[in-house]
């Protein structure tokens, strides 16, 4: 499996997928800095961090996962690489498992960057605009726990998006699924309904350790594992005409 992971990692060199993994969290940090620099009134770390987390979990994370899975899958779809990969002496389930692990690794990397980016944004604005000083505790531990829970809660969404991206050669289908899922999550949240869509689970997960946060983490993890098993079976059996 280690060789497969190395091969999957090598494919990411100079790829747009890797670029996206830096760009998406950087956007969140930049927006957070902008909000901090322009918002009136007293400012506290916990308020600003919560705003940053909300921006990431509601919108940027689902869209980044949609784009990331599409870009990773297109590395193979674009040059019709399946013809080559699937005739090699490697079990197809291991091939797709390695790809899933690398994409999950990129998700973890993005969560780390959001963590670092939000604090950097706060310090940067404080340094440039001393009047925008942030008060209160920095909540470093709570922030780390929230992002870790969000990452686990995002697993179901990640697998569903990756499955769609690998299953269809055209990027339009996974893109539509991602957009519909993201906006459905926004509408459901606004309506106050208790519906657990994969795209909404990372939002719930940030409320850890409250009950809705636990739902988000547990459903994200179990849903992700079930979706992973279904994806490996489906893609492993699929023909390539």
């Amino acid at each position, binding site marked *: 499996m280690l060789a497969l992971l190395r091969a999957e990692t090598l494919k990411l060199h100079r790829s747009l997928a890797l670029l996206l993994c830096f760009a998406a969290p950087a956007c969140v940090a930049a927006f957070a800095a902008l909000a901090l620099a322009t918002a009136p009134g007293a400012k506290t770390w916990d308020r600003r961090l919560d705003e940053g987390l909300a921006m990431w979990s509601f919108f940027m994370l689902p869209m980044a996962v949609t784009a990331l899975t599409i870009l990773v899958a297109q590395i193979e779809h674009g040059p*019709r690489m399946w013809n*080559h990969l699937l005739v090699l002496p490697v079990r197809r389930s291991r091939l797709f498992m390695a790809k899933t692990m690398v994409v999950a690794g990129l998700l973890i990397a993005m969560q780390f960057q959001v963590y670092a980016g939000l604090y950097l944004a706060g310090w940067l604005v404080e340094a440039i605009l001393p009047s925008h000083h942030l008060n209160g505790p920095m909540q470093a531990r709570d922030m780390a726990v929230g992002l870790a829970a969000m990452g686990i809660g995002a697993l179901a969404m990640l697998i569903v998006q990756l499955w769609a991206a690998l299953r269809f050669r055209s990027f339009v289908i996974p893109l539509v699924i991602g957009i519909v899922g993201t906006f459905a999550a926004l509408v459901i949240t606004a309506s106050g309904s208790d519906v657990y869509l994969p795209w909404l689970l990372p939002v719930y997960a940030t409320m850890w350790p409250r009950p809705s946060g636990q739902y988000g983490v547990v459903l994200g993890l179990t849903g992700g594992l079930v979706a992973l098993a279904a994806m490996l079976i489906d893609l492993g059996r699929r023909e390539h005409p």
Partner: protein
Amino acid sequence: MQSAITTTGLRRSFGSKDALRGVDLAVPAGSIFGFLGPNGAGKTTTIRLLLGLLRPSGGRIAILGLPMPARRLEIARSIGALVETPALYDHLTGRENLEITRLLLGLPRSAIAPALDLVDLGFAAHQRLGGYSLGMRQRLALARALLGAPRLLILDEPTNGLDPDGIRDLRGLIRRLAADHGTTVFVSSHQLAEVQQIATHVGLMCDGRLLAQGPLGEVLAGAGPRVDIAVERADAAARALAARGWTVEQAGGRLLVDLAGGNAPDILELLVAQGFRVAELRRSVPTLEELYVRLTAASTGQRRAA
């Protein structure tokens, strides 16, 4: 001779369309097998079945003595393949492209350089594929197929997009692989004249059926001897021969007459008796292309009659 590939009654349908209608293929080990036919004949479908990318609708496949797809992983360790256009990662270098396959095959790092040298691409190993010509890409894909020194090399239309120099180089490489390494090379193509230059064995496909197969010489000889005649008033001479039951083809100002059931002096005597001046008459063996046209015409005629 042991078979590298054997198929028995191999069939494959896509919905209501039959792409393969019972193909019995026998590819001897160590041969260069030209798998020939026009676009849509079923060549690529056969190759996809041989590689396990598709499952057969019926029939059996054995590769290097093992059943496919039941023993796919074992078989895949001994096969190198190039299917249709060369699939490569454009954002990586030539060496990185091979490195990915090397990792998946579990080969040592040292396996890459000889493969690149074999296709004369050592000089471009660290260039990204954006700077590669189509011929270089094809050679790189071939180098990748050769990683791990496979016993069986399956090439689907490998000369597509290659210039004459590239085609000549590929011919030389295929000959070397078979002669020096004992590799069985199964090469599909619609360029019959090209394959005739390198193949030791051929199989001719048309409309999902295998029309003929075997050693190249035997397949061509099996088509029956012909005489190639240079004669004045070729049109009239052709009509005169056809009226006496001979099968005649016209090629430019010359006549090609099947000798089945007759002999050359009979033809000469008939033409002279009818006042035609014969400038040249010689026995000829048909080319693969001529044989193919004849077999497909017969196959099409049988289908129409049915």
